[in-house]
């Protein structure tokens, strides 16, 4: 009897746990999926209904299809992230193929596309198509194409991998930029509090505050530097403009940010022992000022046009 009670209890708890675990797995999987949606219209901007869209995953070959509604809209839900070949087919229109439609993790990718009217057997447009023809040349049989301009398919084809690299670079540099801005607050405060920290007063409160602000500056600086150093490099890019100065300044404030706290710790120790700051520790102040100056110059070089 008691055994049966505990068995039921265990099974109940186990069942609930399993349910939650499975739900969490499902939620996690769902959260990783992306959405591909958009609108298909003709060259005049009118929606094209009943167009068939085929999304083929470039890596797995998995195929999904969707059809546009009366407003020309379509939607692929729950698509694994990656690169897709998107094909749009509709009666009376040329088939459109997009070679690289990237679906982001947890994101919604929008592809609004216009279809060109298909010429009939005689090479002429149907009256209905002619009515929809805007004052644009894309429908003309004589219109030049990209290959007429000497552009090879390699030059016109998109590179989703490079785009992903650029996206990652921008994300990291945005954090770098924000962290750099945040770092300036304790940095300035450290410089201001240094005026009292090295004085002859017996109290240690202002010195402690200066140390705390310095430590916070160092930590934030470390995070800022991490996002700049780890941001991916884009192959084939020659550095030009203010970014060169910005990076050159890092060779000053980088070592400075390491040296300043070391010298500061030495000076702090000497002060706490009742000694006058002496030896190499005396360089703490000047090194900190040069470091802060280089950091400020680096910040201004990419912020304000001189």
């Amino acid at each position, binding site marked *: 009897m008691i055994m049966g009670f505990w068995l039921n209890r265990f099974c109940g708890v186990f069942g609930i746990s399993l349910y939650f675990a499975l739900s969490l797995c499902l939620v996690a999987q769902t959260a990783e999926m992306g959405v591909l949606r958009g609108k298909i219209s003709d060259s005049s901007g009118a929606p094209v209904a009943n167009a068939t869209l085929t999304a083929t995953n470039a890596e797995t070959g998995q195929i999904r299809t969707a059809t546009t509604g009366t407003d020309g809209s379509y939607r692929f839900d729950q698509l694994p992230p990656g690169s897709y070949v998107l094909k749009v087919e509709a009666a009376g229109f040329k088939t459109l193929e997009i070679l690289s439609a990237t679906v982001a993790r947890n994101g919604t990718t929008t592809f609004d596309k216009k279809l060109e009217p298909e010429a009939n057997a005689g090479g002429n447009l149907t009256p209905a198509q002619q009515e929809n023809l805007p004052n644009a040349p894309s429908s003309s049989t004589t219109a*030049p194409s*990209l290959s007429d301009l000497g552009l090879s398919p390699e030059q016109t084809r998109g590179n989703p991998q490079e785009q992903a690299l650029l996206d990652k670079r921008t994300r990291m540099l945005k954090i770098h930029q924000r962290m750099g801005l945040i770092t300036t607050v304790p940095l300035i405060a450290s410089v201001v509090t240094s005026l009292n920290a090295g004085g002859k007063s017996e109290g240690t409160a202002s010195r402690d505050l200066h140390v705390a602000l310095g430590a916070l500056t160092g930590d934030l600086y470390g995070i800022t530097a991490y996002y700049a150093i780890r941001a991916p490099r884009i192959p084939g890019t020659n550095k030009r*403009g203010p*970014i060169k100065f910005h990076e050159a300044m890092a060779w000053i404030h980088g070592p400075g940010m390491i040296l300043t706290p070391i010298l500061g710790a030495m000076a702090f120790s000497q002060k706490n022992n009742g000694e006058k700051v002496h030896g190499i520790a005396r360089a703490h102040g000047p090194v900190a000022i040069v470091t802060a100056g280089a950091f400020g110059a680096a910040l201004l070089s990419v912020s304000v046009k001189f």
Partner: protein
Amino acid sequence: MHKKILIALFAALPAFALADSQWVLKQSTLTYHVSHPLHQTDGVSHEARGKGVCHAGQCDFLIAVPVKSFDSGDSNRDLHMLQVTRGAEFPIVTVRTRLPESAATSVTIYADLEIQFAGQTAQYKQVQFRLETQGGETRITGTIPATLVDFKIDPPSLLTMPVKNEIPVRVDMTWQKQ
């Protein structure tokens, strides 16, 4: 009477046969302008390619320019521009327009443009351009009133301040008829 009409038709035939002609883009300068509270930036490209094909009194023009070819003088900014405009995914900006062949003799033309950029297509109606013809070459200058919203581009920001939506593109192209 019939004989006169026939002679007139035969006389006109060579003219119809010669009606097809082409325009080739000889040189170009395309400049986009971005406004930020702290910066005014211009990105320039000289790498546009273009062709115009004329048939039955109408000319279809196609101009293509690699997104990567725009140089603002700052490689970091150019890479950021490439990222926000999805330039690696959509490496070419194309501009299409159709103009009457007779427009070549005008001083001012108004063109309907269809621009494909950043995976989007935007149409600009009646964009004004000035024409100067000299020695078989025609120079076209004007400004395309492009905006970031037209191409669904999120405005890039610097120090948390976004750039303005307007990114006018100055066009200076020299075409040669062939």
